[in-house]
């Protein structure tokens, strides 16, 4: 007997990635030999490598998860749905380091390797995770010729009103990071965007093998094996970044995570974090990252914003703010500029140019994912809130943070 297992309801290897949010899966019997009844009970369980990810299961859209699941599967080839999710606290460290097995009794009848792909603290990545991420990022930049040029062009002085100083700040950047992450995953699917937890020391980020060491001038130096040494933006080589703090400690003056999460239970209050810690994190340096028009030239920008997004995610979880219909989840009180209202599509993915929007829309539509359908090619502000699919399973965006549970 043989079975076929689909993760994210897809046979594609590119879809074999899950996060903490339940991913729809299917099992069907492809070869029923040995079956003696119209349905057989198959046991599904997760097998993890030593430090690899772990998965849990449930049969329906609701209910608790367990380490294994017994499913009655017809032998006529009809597929049966179930749900798999990463077990919180056990993310993968490499692609395929966890396996789902299907057994009929003790006999193995099918398996699928997958990855519990999670956004992690950049300071605690393994060397292999770090190197894969850096390599993918350098390829995306491709010494100025890669798709990264579009991401750089999306975040300039011209476009900044689309994304800053108004309620759409957090949703826009969530979409921006997601777009970039999906492009990185098209290069190496094992990569997830890590975050720079800026209210804590992160010496492992600021070294030559990762995001570089700045000299007294602010020129960032990389090791000879680090492909970021070829980083180019706007036709100019290298990265200018001068920390105003010792990188063995956290920058001073930043609101801590606790303080940020305590800003308020209403979005209108929480989004003031745009000033501090977000703005303060940016301006803890001299160099590109400290000015809005040049910030995206520095790849550290994306790790900084990943932490901003993580703080929002944590706040959402703590205060149950995934539902756009609840006033406290967003600041839709009126008078917001275009692109900052819940029903608005967001530039540049909407392709709208001129008038109140910038003259061009670099990058085209938002990158699709083989794992999830949301938020669509031209996301609206409201599509970025329910990133875990807490309100609607179809809203799941396919990412999670290592310390934000569902």
């Amino acid at each position, binding site marked *: 007997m043989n079975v076929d297992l689909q993760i994210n309801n897809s046979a594609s290897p590119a879809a074999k990635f899950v996060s903490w949010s339940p991913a729809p899966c299917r099992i069907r019997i492809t070869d029923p030999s040995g079956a003696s009844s119209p349905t057989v009970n198959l046991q599904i369980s997760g097998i993890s490598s030593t430090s690899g990810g772990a998965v849990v299961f449930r049969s329906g859209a609701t209910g608790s998860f367990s380490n294994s699941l017994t499913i009655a599967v017809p032998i006529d080839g009809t597929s049966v749905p179930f749900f798999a999710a990463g077990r919180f606290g056990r993310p993968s460290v490499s692609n395929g380091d966890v396996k789902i097995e299907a057994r009929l009794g003790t006999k193995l009848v099918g398996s699928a390797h997958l990855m519990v792909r999670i956004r992690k603290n950049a300071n605690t990545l393994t060397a292999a995770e770090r190197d894969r991420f850096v390599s993918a990022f350098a390829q995306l930049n491709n010494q100025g010729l890669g798709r990264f040029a579009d991401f750089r062009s999306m975040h300039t002085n*011209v476009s900044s009103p689309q994304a800053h100083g108004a309620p759409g700040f957090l949703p826009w950047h969530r979409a921006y990071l997601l777009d970039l992450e999906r492009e990185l995953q098209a290069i190496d699917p094992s990569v997830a965007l890590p975050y720079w937890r800026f209210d804590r020391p992160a010496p492992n980020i600021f070294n030559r093998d990762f995001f570089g060491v700045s000299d007294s001038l602010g020129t960032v130096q990389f090791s000879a094996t680090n492909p970021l040494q070829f980083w180019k933006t706007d036709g100019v080589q290298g990265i200018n970044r001068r920390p105003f703090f010792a990188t063995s400690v956290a920058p001073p003056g930043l609101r801590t995570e606790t303080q940020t999460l305590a800003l308020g239970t209403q979005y209108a209050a929480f989004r003031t974090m745009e000033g501090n810690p977000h703005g303060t994190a940016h301006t803890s340096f001299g160099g590109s990252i400290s000015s809005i028009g040049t910030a995206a030239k520095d790849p550290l920008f994306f790790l900084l914003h990943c932490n901003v997004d993580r703080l929002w995610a944590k706040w959402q979880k703590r205060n149950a703010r995934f539902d756009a219909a609840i006033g406290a989840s967003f600041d839709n009180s009126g008078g917001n500029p275009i692109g900052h209202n819940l029903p608005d599509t967001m530039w540049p993915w909407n392709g709208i140019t001129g008038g109140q929007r910038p003259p061009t829309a*670099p990058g085209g539509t938002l990158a699709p994912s083989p794992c999830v359908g949301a938020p669509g090619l031209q996301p609206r502000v409201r599509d970025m809130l329910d990133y875990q699919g807490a309100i609607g399973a179809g809203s799941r965006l396919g990412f999670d943070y290592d310390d934000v549970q569902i």
Partner: protein
Amino acid sequence: MRGNEAASLQSESEFGAFVDRLAADPSRCAHLTELLREDHAVYRERGAAEIVRMRGWVLLAIARAGVSEASLIFLLEELDAGVDPYLVAAAARALRSYPRPTDALAPFVMRALNNIRYRDLPVSFEVYGDYARSTDGTSAVRELLATLVWLGPLARAVIPELLVLRAQAARSRKLHEDIDRTVQAIHGADEAPGPGTHSCCEMTPSAPTEETSWPIGQRRSMKPVETVMLEDQEGELIPFKDFFNEQPTIVVFFYTRCDNPMKCSLTVTKLARVQHLLDAQGFADRINTAAITYDPAFDRPARLRVYGQDRGVRMDARHRMLRTPDDHAALCNHFQLGVNFVESLVNRHRIELFILDAAGSIAVCFERLHWNEHEVVRRAIQLLREPRCSADPHSQSASTCSSSTIPGRANSPVSPVRRSR
């Protein structure tokens, strides 16, 4: 114009004084317009910031001397696609010296307002090259609003847009107040602004346009550049005459390091839209398109390809991104490109699009202002339908073709035809 006189000026202060002399001399103030041409020798080997200072001073001089029809297009160009607050402010101020305003000017002012509002800076017009270090003086937004006030009832059509801008500037009380005053002034004005009193130049009442066209027989043939080698985004080499031949071609100029999003990036993005329109109308195989870089040393094939791809440009045998590996100067001369350089890098350029006919001769030129994709396609299709000349298509002299065979076009003298908007 005493081009040599201007070109010989070494320092900015000499230039500033020269411009002041021109502005003060009614018999010479028309030469100020010549100084706004990007390819003027005075701008060679100057950095972009220096050119901003120089051009801004010329615009302010024109504001004092009076705006002619010839200089109006430069002001509108700055409002249409400018991103430097000093130049936009100077252009807005100069516009108020135009003696025959029409309601066609208000949309330009409004467009500039939308472009510049988040990048506004205080500017100083007191002394050449001055930079404001306080906000006591003026700014691009203030000058633009003042120009709308000056337009008065001619600006009524943009009031809705102004109110949208006001609504979006919720936190900017000052901008709120400025816009309120402007709207009040526009509503309250009974008459359009009158003619100026100190224009030194002849005026014609027609609105400016970005398009120039030449009838068959009066077009610049490709003979001087037919052997210039072009390299496309795949590294394929092709002589000019082999690509720009047998069917009309729409040609734009750009460079990948242009940092004005209203110019090159938008130009190439619009070229992609032109390609879609051609395709939709079934002309993609009958009308070529080309984007040629001003910066061939830096914009090598891989860079051309990526730039085009990122903007949705179709690239194949009939649609190419091109550079001139060797004879770039010949191309610049042939097209009389509005561009200048500091070393190999572009320091200033205008928006320019050409349509070459099936013989590779320059038939239509859109310059300075943003061109309309539909209009460009329409003109290219027109060229496709015009008869081929019986005489040597490479001849620069008047051919035996009759321009009356072109519908709606009367026989015209040697000078090019300017279409009214």
